[in-house]
């Protein structure tokens, strides 16, 4: 631990194909997380993402036990979770409690499934904290295909989805199908979460899905700019996290969360400083003049 960052060793490790594969996977994930993040933040879905990621762990654990592809299991678990949470919690007042109840049960099932699993413990641990270096070409192809599918669907539904997320009442009045849209969005988030579970792990998926977007939303009110910033922040966290974890051989997730949290702190400080300035600039309670 005397040297946390060794440039030579890092460069040497970057030459390995499996490291490059991991970087591509992280870049794809960062893009997905950055694009979905601001909408997740606008819709107050951070806890839903957490719940979905835990249940994706349950799916992965089931796949491990059944001897099928863990990635497929995690994906299936996340999509089922997203649909269940989306359908059960139509009313926002009970949203959190529904997620909490389903999440706890799902995690319990996952733990039981892992207990049944006779194989190596590192496989189990990988589901929780991520194993991006183990991403092979087949899972990279799955990751890429899922990412393209998510982005294409998002391209089609983006505008009404944004409308429904930031202004649901008027969106409904203007004929936006807010209910079906939130279900579709939950599935998109579920797919992205499942992909994240395999790289940074179920416990830390929030570091990529929420933190960069939350940071971006702190410093801009422009939805487009927030999306671009969230993508940049997520890429820096995901790719940077892997690069920094190479030399010490430490878990990727520790670095990903550290970087994204630092970005968040910086943005938070910036927004605080700005808020103070603005507070001085405009006196509160001034009645705006009548328009011409």
């Amino acid at each position, binding site marked *: 631990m005397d040297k946390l960052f060794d440039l030579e060793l890092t460069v040497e490790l970057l030459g390995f194909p499996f490291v490059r594969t991991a970087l591509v996977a992280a870049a794809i994930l960062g893009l997905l997380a950055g694009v979905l993040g601001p909408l997740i933040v606008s819709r107050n879905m951070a806890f839903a993402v957490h719940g979905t990621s835990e249940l994706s762990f349950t799916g992965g654990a089931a796949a491990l036990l059944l001897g099928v592809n863990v990635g497929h299991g995690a994906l299936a678990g996340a999509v089922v979770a997203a649909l269940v949470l989306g359908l059960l919690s139509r009313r926002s007042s009970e949203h959190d409690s529904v997620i909490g109840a389903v999440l706890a049960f799902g995690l319990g099932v996952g733990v039981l499934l892992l207990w049944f699993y006779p194989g190596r413990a590192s496989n189990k641990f990988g589901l929780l904290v991520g194993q991006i270096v183990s991403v092979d070409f087949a899972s990279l192809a799955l990751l890429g295909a899922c990412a393209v599918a998510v982005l294409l669907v998002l391209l089609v539904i983006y505008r009404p989805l944004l409308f429904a997320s930031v*202004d649901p*009442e008027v969106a409904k009045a203007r004929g936006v199908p807010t209910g079906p849209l939130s279900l579709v969005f939950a599935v998109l988030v579920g797919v992205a979460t499942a992909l994240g579970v395999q790289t940074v792990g179920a416990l830390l998926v929030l570091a990529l899905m929420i933190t960069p977007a939350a940071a971006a939303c702190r410093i801009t009110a422009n939805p487009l700019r927030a999306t671009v910033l969230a993508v940049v922040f997520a890429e820096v966290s995901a790719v940077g996290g892997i690069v920094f974890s190479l030399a010490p051989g430490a878990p990727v997730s520790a670095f990903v969360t550290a970087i994204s949290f630092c970005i968040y702190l910086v943005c938070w400080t910036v927004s605080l400083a700005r808020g103070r300035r603005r507070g001085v600039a405009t006196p509160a309670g001034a009645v705006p003049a009548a328009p011409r």
Partner: protein
Amino acid sequence: MTVDRDAARDQSVRTSPGSGVVSLREATLAYGQRVLWSGLDLDVQPGEFVAVLGPNGSGKTSLLRVLLGLRPLTSGSVRVVGEPPGRGNQRIGYVPQQRAMEESLVLRGRDLVGLGLDGHRWGIGLRGMRARRERVDAALAAVGARDFADAPVGRLSGGEQQRLRVAQALVSDPEVLLCDEPLLSLDLANQQVVSSLIDARRRAANTAVLFVTHEINPVLPLVDRVLYLVDGRFRIGRPDEVMTAETLSELYRATIDVVRVGGQIHVVGAQSGLCEQSSHHHLQDEERA
């Protein structure tokens, strides 16, 4: 604005449809056993300002939901700009109740208005960005909101937010403007600003306005007709026809006094739901008691 009479003829009702931009015939709305209103005939003409009054739960907002196509009538027929109400009609503008928006909301005033123009369309809307920007700018200017159009909406005052709401409703050039208590929780100055913006629009573009409110006084000078809903019963007419002790006592089936003070109309003796939001009404009640 003319209504296509053939298209407007309803299958279930033989009475001929009227010429209004909003047209209801024998309209009934019920939730299970509870009838909100029945036998409602209403024609709103282009440029007409109709205030919809009544106590809480009398079905004022439900009427707007019917016109927006979010709720079907239990019976009867309804046409809005010549068509059955459908979701997402561009020719209908909607101003919701003023509700504080979250301070952290990632949205600027111009985004809110822009969503009113094309937020219901699929895709991300990269085409026609320039024309879109011009229309949004014009709508912002019309309500005097250009100075704060780029600020986060959550940090604006209630009056500023509601001006943006008016711009959002008008940016698509609607022929009907449906307003659901748009003045609620605004101070007097802002009530005047918002209602005069709506009034200016209907005079300039002949837009019909259906204005749901529990408090007629802020808009009294603008109102052409009143639709007063109470407990399944209703009256339609000019304010001086409907807002009388006789008519309201009949509607409420209780003794109601109507007091006119300084060009304002105060209804006294109705259940508290009638004027619960307005403190000076309660003062008036106490003075008379």
